[in-house]
């Protein structure tokens, strides 16, 4: 059997799955972000620390994300809009899933590309029509994958990746959100 390598350490993930089955507390993670208003609708959000495996954890370095609105919204366009960050999250989560599932199923990937389109009727956020929701009406993701596998196997990779995706779940199912003033 030729060894395939998509750069995912699947064995470590499978081992973690076995260990965490018997240790549900260690499986509880908290992801954190801290945000700061700059000016207008421009803000920066930084991420470095999180909690998991029973203790504080840290990324190798801090990442700072800039969000703003485009000039067509009469803003300065210092960065992408907040709702576009959801597309970043969805695309990167599904892509990571495709790579992991492919590794686990012994499928060598050569390229994985996707485009994500979120359809958004901005009359909702503008309060122009109370029947229009604020968020996306729908999102469409299109994958183009080059791999040593049949069309059906590639479709199954993408389906399994959605089934195990944190962001796909967070977008397709409701989540309780609490917003407090400290």
């Amino acid at each position, binding site marked *: 059997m030729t060894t395939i390598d998509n750069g995912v350490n699947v064995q470590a993930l499978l081992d973690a799955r076995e260990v965490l089955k018997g240790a549900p507390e260690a499986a509880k993670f908290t992801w954190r972000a801290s945000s700061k208003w700059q000016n207008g609708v421009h803000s920066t959000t930084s991420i470095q620390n999180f909690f998991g495996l029973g203790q504080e954890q840290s990324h190798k370095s801090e990442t700072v994300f800039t969000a703003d609105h485009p000039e067509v919204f009469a803003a300065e366009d210092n960065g992408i809009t907040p709702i576009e960050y959801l597309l970043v999250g969805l695309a990167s989560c599904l892509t990571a899933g495709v790579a992991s599932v492919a590794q686990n199923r012994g499928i060598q990937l050569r390229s994985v590309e996707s485009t994500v389109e979120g359809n958004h009727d901005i009359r909702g956020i503008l309060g122009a029509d109370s029947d229009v929701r604020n968020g996306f009406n729908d999102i469409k993701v299109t994958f183009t994958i080059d791999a040593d596998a049949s069309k*059906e196997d590639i479709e199954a990779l993408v*389906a399994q990746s959605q089934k195990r995706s944190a962001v796909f779940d967070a977008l397709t199912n*409701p989540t309780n959100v609490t917003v407090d003033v400290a």
Partner: protein
Amino acid sequence: MLERGEVANSWRRERWDSLRLLTPNWQSRLPGHHYQGPDPDGYMTMGEVVEFIERFATVSGAPVRTGTNVTSVRRAGDGYQVTTSSGAISCRSVVIASGACNRPVVPPFAGAVPSSVTQITPFDYRGPDRLPEGGVLVVGASATGVQLAAELRRSGRPVILSVGEHVRLPRLYRGRDVLWWMDASGVWDQRHDEVDDLARARRLPSPQLAGTPGRGTLDLNVLAAMGVELVGRWAAVSDGRALFSGGLRNVFSLADLKMGRLLDTFDEWARAHGRDADVGPPERFAPTRVPEPARWRLDLSSGEIRTIVWATGFRPDYGWLEVPVVDEKGRLRHEGGVVGGPGLYALGLPVLRRRKSTFIHGVEDDAREVVGHLARHLPVRR
């Protein structure tokens, strides 16, 4: 053999009026006892199933004590103390054959449904005429859910079906019952120690199949064509509204792809075993059509639906089992029916030893092996 009710109790008391087996008559076989009627390809009504099992109890001379409810089983010395509604029994060994489907499962958010909506489980359901007038939301699209959705829709009611992960199957494949293929190709005989992911195989929902005289397929495309509205998996109740998952398209893909792989397995088996001439040509079925747009929100107090039918699965009840062999999810811990406690055994649970374990014809091979183990256990300890 202790039975709290009568022989074939679950088929008498826990099934709806129109139900027929989804397994064909020729497949209803128990050791030394099988269907001998004129319609081997048909599907038994509940009355026929009860008769079939009663006859088996008689011909096998099974020492059944009916009307004897087991209220506790406890470890005592090198055996067990069994308390029943008609006295106590001491024994060396216990075989738990109390069924895998003693209680309907209902998700916790059922408690948040407005009281104007009637909620029932398959154990309460008898037929469409016993429900309040108006629309019905059927939750769950496995065998029970698709059958009840079809029956309710045919009665003229508006029906919405909430669909999570499911197992799609055609009723007939290449001219044969799809369960003939499961049987003949050996898929159903696949053993628990050969299955890739046993935990997952044991959680697999029942297939979208119905036993009808017309031998028709009852998949989501058929239901949609009947006018059943498909929505995603019910995720939560918020402000009196049901919120359904937006991931409907993917549960369709997963089921379509999985069915395709199973049919590939059948085709390969037919080719390898020279059976291509006995069956029709290979077929592939249209993908499940995604409704445009699928609703993800339903106001439960608007009167649009008056009844919710929870077809969200069943679970066993081990409330009487006072031996620490049940896991945190209420499932019995066992290895092929050999339960942790010495002399304690189980039969009739999902993929106990084989994929067919929970079907009527599946118990024979399992029982032989489990009883073999039991017989070896007893003399060793004597």
